[in-house]
């Protein structure tokens, strides 16, 4: 698609805003006339909600500084957080509602008023409801403060088909820890003395408070860091020991650690006797998993597995096997995370300083609004049948797509999407495209013309996080806090915050009675339970409220404490899993290996970008202008591939072209590419060059949680060009 397909008026707007961007990005002496003021707010460059202080001069945001009052983010703001200014001043952002005129993806849009866009979308949604029932529309979104409004509109509309991001992210880790401990804990990296990170690349992929804590622990307190990763990442570079583990064999490593720790009597017997159930069965189960056996699976020497197991149990309870964030890897991912959870439990690091700590919370009030009826229809992804243990409200994204494409158990003809780019977030773009093509209506709420928005019918431009006030939110954690995102500058364009968009649609769908409140009322109701005077005023001034008391440990370590599991104890052996037809203890199955001439595609992230976002931000793109295919010299050489060559990477579902980075830093049986590149939308033409992983990833999911399994794709690599 060429530039010529963008309507002339859109071009005019782009050009006009370009002048603003120049001023902010490059101006030597910015206009500093006018009032200077600061607003304490919350970042939205990633889902981590760090607190920031925005400095405004002459009506423009000059700088985003970290807000040290937040006990989590403290004095940090990462590259993305600093570059967030450009989100507001992006010349290519969505500036007013648009309705598609040509064919889907043809790029013929007309600018519309909000009334027109609401009327059009509500008309389509009403028609689908009339013909197919409310279950005929899928409502999908990714985590954000305002997601609740969007989700509630779907529920009030009556669809059971709310599908959120966890099954593209961390559903398997959440479910595994919940099934074991009844909750998903935090890892006290600030106080841990021994940390094992398997596949979690916390020094490179995602810069968050955990990153700060871990670097402080490892460098200043000499905590030991063990890294398992098929790539030599920044985390591997900073680790005391890095094992280039064979992909998909992490569970073998963990089970062998359990074999050593239990076999040598290094487990916390008193703790397990009091708080857990099923140790006898676990003990018998792991006898088979010797370090020598695990060496053959993982390619990590048995002696090293024994050493790590001993060091880990010696350091306990200040020792953690870190759970990881994006856990969408393999079809046995849930069971691998269960093995981790069990390993953590066995050394007794539960609710101890430097161990695994159940999240503290702070009270927030709730605004009362009219309840809607529960949906009549079952979910289209048939969650109860396919993933009965999975979180009910999140859905299973890939199974949902399969069923929508098959038209079973009923037709789905509408798709409402907020703050999500399924076209890049889901594996296998051709399937996502087919899902979109069979829809009668697609409505997208976004700040930019994402690839998904490009194929939509109506695009609702949301105000950026610097232009709107969101619902205040409590961040659970070892040190919980309440944070507020508030408007820093008035919207630069004809955009609205999520609640206003929801209300505009609700009015026309006769659902206004469920959304009869303002953001101020919502926030007042939420804040009133906070244990301080004038809580909302406090939040508006400081942006964050943290409990003045430092974290306390051990609240759950009372013999009478009931864990939220079937037995009320930590479940090493899970009867619920057994009843649901799954392994009650993690059983290792060796992963399929790529046949000769093929490579396993392993994904990863770089913290300049959040998922498929920020790749249009010039300040961030400056560090990484394209994604390249990492290939080990041993793999590249026989096929005549040299550094910089253009290659075609092909899987069973598609192919992409990108250039090669010949690198020692990856196992010869794998290739790697960064997510978020290779965009289709012409509005994102500033985005980096390269290929989209979603075009070649195959559809597979974890059997228990339904989480996408993104490391199960084997690819061929063919040279198609030389560096120009």
């Amino acid at each position: 698609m060429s530039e010529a397909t963008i309507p002339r008026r859109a071009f005019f707007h782009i050009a006009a805003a370009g002048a603003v961007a120049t001023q902010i990005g490059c101006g030597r002496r910015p206009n500093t006339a006018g009032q200077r003021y600061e607003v304490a707010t919350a970042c939205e460059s990633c889902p981590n909600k760090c607190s920031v202080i925005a400095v405004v001069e002459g009506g423009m945001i000059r700088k985003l500084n970290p807000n040290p009052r937040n006990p989590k983010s403290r004095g940090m703001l990462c590259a993305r957080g600093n570059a967030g200014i450009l989100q507001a001043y992006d010349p290519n952002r969505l500036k007013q509602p648009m309705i598609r005129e040509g064919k889907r993806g043809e790029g013929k849009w007309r600018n519309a008023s909000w009334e027109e866009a609401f009327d059009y979308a509500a008309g389509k949604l009403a028609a689908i409801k009339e013909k197919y029932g409310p279950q005929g529309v899928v409502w999908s979104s990714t985590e954000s403060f305002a997601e609740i409004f969007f989700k509630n509109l779907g529920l009030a509309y009556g669809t059971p088909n709310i599908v959120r991001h966890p099954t593209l992210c961390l559903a398997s880790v959440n479910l595994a820890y919940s099934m074991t401990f009844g909750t998903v804990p935090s890892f006290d990296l600030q106080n841990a003395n021994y940390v094992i990170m398997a596949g979690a690349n916390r020094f490179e992929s995602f810069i968050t408070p955990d990153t700060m804590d871990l670097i402080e622990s490892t460098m200043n307190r000499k905590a030991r860091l063990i890294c398992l990763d098929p790539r030599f990442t920044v985390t591997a570079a900073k680790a005391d020991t890095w094992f280039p583990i064979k992909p998909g064999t992490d569970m073998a490593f963990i089970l062998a650690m359990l074999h050593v720790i239990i076999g040598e009597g290094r487990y916390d017997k008193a703790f397990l006797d009091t708080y857990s159930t099923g140790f006898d069965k676990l003990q018998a189960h792991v006898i088979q998993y010797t370090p020598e056996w695990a060496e053959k699976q993982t390619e990590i020497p048995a002696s090293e597995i024994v050493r790590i197991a001993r060091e880990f149990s010696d350091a306990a309870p200040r020792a953690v096997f870190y759970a990881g964030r994006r856990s969408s890897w393999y079809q046995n991912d849930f069971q691998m995370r269960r093995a981790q959870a069990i390993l953590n439990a066995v050394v007794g690091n539960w609710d101890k300083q430097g161990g695994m700590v159940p999240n503290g919370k702070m009270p927030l009030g709730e605004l009362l609004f009219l309840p809607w009826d529960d949906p009549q229809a079952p979910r289209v992804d048939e969650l109860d049948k396919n993933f009965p243990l999975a979180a009910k409200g999140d859905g299973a994204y890939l199974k949902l797509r399969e069923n929508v494409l098959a038209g079973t158990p009923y037709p789905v003809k509408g798709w409402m999407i907020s703050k999500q780019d399924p076209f890049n977030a889901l594996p296998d773009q051709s399937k996502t495209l087919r899902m979109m093509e069979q829809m009668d209506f697609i409505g997208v709420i976004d700040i930019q013309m994402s690839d998904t928005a490009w194929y939509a019918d109506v695009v609702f431009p949301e105000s950026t996080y610097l232009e709107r006030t969101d619902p205040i939110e409590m961040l659970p954690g070892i040190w919980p806090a309440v944070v507020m995102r508030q408007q820093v500058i008035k919207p630069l364009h004809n955009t609205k915050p999520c609640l206003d968009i929801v209300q505009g649609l609700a009015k026309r769908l006769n659902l206004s009675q469920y959304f009869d409140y303002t953001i101020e009322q919502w926030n007042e109701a939420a804040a009133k339970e906070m244990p301080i005077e004038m809580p909302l005023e406090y939040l508006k001034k400081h942006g964050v409220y943290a409990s003045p008391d430092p974290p306390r440990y051990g609240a759950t370590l009372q013999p009478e404490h009931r864990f939220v599991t079937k037995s009320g104890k930590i479940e090493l052996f899970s009867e619920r899993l057994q009843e649901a037809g799954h392994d009650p203890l993690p059983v290792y199955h060796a992963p399929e290996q790529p046949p000769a001439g093929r490579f396993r595609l392993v994904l990863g992230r770089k913290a300049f970008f959040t998922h498929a976002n920020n790749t249009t931000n010039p300040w961030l793109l400056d560090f990484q202008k394209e994604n390249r295919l990492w290939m080990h010299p041993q793999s590249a050489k026989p096929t005549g591939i040299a550094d910089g060559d253009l290659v075609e990477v092909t899987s069973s579902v598609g192919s992409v072209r990108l250039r090669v980075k010949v690198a020692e830093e990856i196992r010869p049986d794998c290739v790697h590419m960064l997510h978020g590149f290779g965009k289709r939308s012409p509005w994102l033409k500033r985005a980096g060059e390269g290929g989209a992983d979603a075009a070649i990833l195959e559809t597979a999911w974890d059997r228990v949680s339904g989480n996408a399994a993104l490391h199960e794709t084997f690819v061929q690599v063919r040279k198609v060009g030389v560096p120009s």
Partner: protein
Amino acid sequence: MKNEGKRYALAIDSRKCINCKACVVACRAENHVPLGHSRNWINEEHRGSWPKLFASFEPEQCHHCANPSCVRVCPTGASYQRADGIVMINEDECIGCRYCIVACPYGARFFREDTGVVEKCTLCAHRVDRGEAPACVETCPSKARIFGDLFDENGPLQQVLSTREHRVSKPQTGNSPQIYYLF
């Protein structure tokens, strides 16, 4: 003179640097540094071959030398040093001759085509004068940079320099650089 009796400097713990570039973006935003140039950067070193690999990262910027060669060569006096040690450029007096760029042993200066003057790290003197830390120091997620007054015996900088081994980059130039890299 402003800040008499102070000597600002930086200590950098490169082991803590994870090459996340937060400092580079914070500087770009704070000081309106145009793309294509940077006032601070991170030197990367990658060594070894599979599977014995090493990588290290070292943040760098103007060293605010005690004996700055850039100031000595400046024909107009545009480059000057404040009493507190911060090396500055008076943009109104800079004629863009770029002698200083050649004189700097660290490559910390660059010429801006759009303004016709030379630019570099000012240790965020405007922030420091307000009592704030430089933007790169404040934002750093891993707190690899420690900013302070060398004359303040109990300050954070002296505390770390008196307890940790450190070195400076290219001491042989005689510039007496004031970024202290911690071992």
